């Protein structure tokens, strides 16, 4: 069937159409239906592409937009890594959207609901576009689409601090995007092409000229801003804390992860290993910043009173593991980065989804939603057993307890460090895991072993919120036990990248 051949285009176009439709229809319920349908369709496309990549020649699907052959036309290019990230992003959207319905009911004024869905659709479009495109400038355009809609999503939060957080993210994000486009400009000037594959080939001949190194530096810094690499993460904690719960979950699972994908794409597929790892001290810098993130951000997380902000800081720390994996320049290291990208994505999304339900459970009927600070959580496990238990399970995955997804990524990360002979890094990884134990256990002690205030009744989050969240919780356990999908895909992707990057 011919439709199957156009999956790469459909992947992006379907959510893209859904967004203006949602605006035109101006009705929360209809907009919800349209965007959710588009997200599910996108998820179906991603599954289809994932299957197709396995059979494609050379493990790559190349789709020519408008039938213009690359390097003249825009190419959509799906390899193992891209298909993996597409699955993550569209799958998250497919889960978070049904959750949104009940969640934004009390977080966003009803007349703005259709805009929320429109922005969600656009954000999804942007993230999918970044992942699938094989054109450098296209990456920038999609990046801006996703970023602008993200700023709006954050600003929809009901606290006024959401506005300030969105504004700060807008400034930082725009600087990052501008840096990326400057880097792409240098590359274009030096190679005369925007197609990533073509660019990579032409770069081999002029590798170490100064503009290319400048391009590498600009792109790395720009993307690092977007992926919240320590110390460029200041925009993240407040943005995650004050955005609507559903938006937080979606962004935590996808936005920073797609940025990691962009960095991997540029480093391994465009610049190539020898340039990135041998000409500039980039890996060393990345290594140190990752370690700083793992310790400083996790340490800060311990002292947060707001549960949402606690896990936001934890995200910064966990991004450190991903970038640490990249800095090793080995298949196992890259494997660890890709695995953790996925595993941490589902884990953190589960936690933020559950916190969204938790906030609803804390609220008194009709009153303003409270902030999930620790003093309000005492004895919560009695009132919301499923929510709390879910957070504990996902928290175990953050720690890296065996049997959870987080353990698998940590295993590969440590293996990579051992391979590199850097045993002190092994120690650092393990020590920083202990910090995660501390902040997760703060929650456990308060929720389970502190007496609940008098007169509290059992009040679980609505099922439409619990089910998506618990699917993800089950996912974190499932991918900790049966790893054939995650490890298989990540290893294949890492091998493909390294083979091309040589």
């Amino acid at each position: 069937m011919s439709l199957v051949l156009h999956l790469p285009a459909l992947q992006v176009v379907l959510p893209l159409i859904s967004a203006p439709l949602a605006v035109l229809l101006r009705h929360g319920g209809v907009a919800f239906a349209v965007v959710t349908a588009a997200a599910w369709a996108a998820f179906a496309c991603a599954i289809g592409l994932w299957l197709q990549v396995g059979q494609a020649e050379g493990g790559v699907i190349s789709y020519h937009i408008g039938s213009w052959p690359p390097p003249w036309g825009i190419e959509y290019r799906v390899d193992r890594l891209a298909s993996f990230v597409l699955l993550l992003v569209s799958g998250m959207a497919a889960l978070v959207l049904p959750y949104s319905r009940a969640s934004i009911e009390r977080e966003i004024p009803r007349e703005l609901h259709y805009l929320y869905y429109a922005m969600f659709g656009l954000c999804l479009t942007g993230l999918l576009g970044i992942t699938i495109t094989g054109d450098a400038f296209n990456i920038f355009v999609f990046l801006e689409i996703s970023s602008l809609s993200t700023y709006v999503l954050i600003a929809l939060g009901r606290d006024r601090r959401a506005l300030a957080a969105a504004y700060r993210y807008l400034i930082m994000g725009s600087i990052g995007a501008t840096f990326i486009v400057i880097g792409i400009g240098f590359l274009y000037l030096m190679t005369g092409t925007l197609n990533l594959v073509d660019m990579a080939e032409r770069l081999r001949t002029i590798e170490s000229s100064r503009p290319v190194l400048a391009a590498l530096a600009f792109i790395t810094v720009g993307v690092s801003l977007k992926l919240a690499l320590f110390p460029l993460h200041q925009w993240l904690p407040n943005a995650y804390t004050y955005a609507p719960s559903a938006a937080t979950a979606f962004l935590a699972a996808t936005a920073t992860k797609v940025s990691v994908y962009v960095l991997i794409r540029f480093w391994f597929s465009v610049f190539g290993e020898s340039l990135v790892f041998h000409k500039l001290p980039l890996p060393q810098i990345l290594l140190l910043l990752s370690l700083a993130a793992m310790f400083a951000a996790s340490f800060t997380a311990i002292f947060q009173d707001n549960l949402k902000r606690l896990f936001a800081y934890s995200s910064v720390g966990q991004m450190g593991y991903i970038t640490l994996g990249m800095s090793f320049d080995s298949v196992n290291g890259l494997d660890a980065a890709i695995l953790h990208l996925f595993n941490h994505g589902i884990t953190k999304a589960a936690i933020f989804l559950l916190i969204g339900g938790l906030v609803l459970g804390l609220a008194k009927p009709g009153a303003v939603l409270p902030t999930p600070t620790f003093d309000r959580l005492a004895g919560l496990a009695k009132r919301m057993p499923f929510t709390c238990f879910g957070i504990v399970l996902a928290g175990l995955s953050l720690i890296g307890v065996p049997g959870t997804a987080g353990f698998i990524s940590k295993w590969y990360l440590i293996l990579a460090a051992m391979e590199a002979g850097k045993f002190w890094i092994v120690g650092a990884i393990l020590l920083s895991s202990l910090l995660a134990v501390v902040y997760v256990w703060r929650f456990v002690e308060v929720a389970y072993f502190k007496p609940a205030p008098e007169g509290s009744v059992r009040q679980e989050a609505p099922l439409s919120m619990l089910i998506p969240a618990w699917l993800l919780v089950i996912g974190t356990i499932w991918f900790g036990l049966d790893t054939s999908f995650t490890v298989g895909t990540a290893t294949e992707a890492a091998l493909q990248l390294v083979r091309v990057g040589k």
Partner: protein
Amino acid sequence: MLEHFSHIVTVFLLVAGLFIVIARGNLIKKLVGLSILQTSVYLLYIAPGKLLGGTAPILAPQLSVYSNPLPHVLILTAIVVGVATLALGLALAVRIREAYDTIEEDEILALDHAADAREGS
């Protein structure tokens, strides 16, 4: 020196823009800086696309030297993006003014810290 003229202007705009974004506390001024920063990008792309004596890319026997049109197209997109960013930034600034009664960053931060402290206790 003169042959790098456009580059010098580009770098100047870039640094100036970045400086304003970082050093100024007023939300509107920050957006001005951001726009200047983005303008430097437009120049970075377009200037090298122009050939002295080149014309628009029209297929005609008497014209043999023409400028690369692609950067123009790219920058058209980038300008749109820049305008959208500016618009959204201004809209946020307006909402912030309504919510906080100020558009000075340090005052907003002070209000936020006060709110955080209230919640923490």
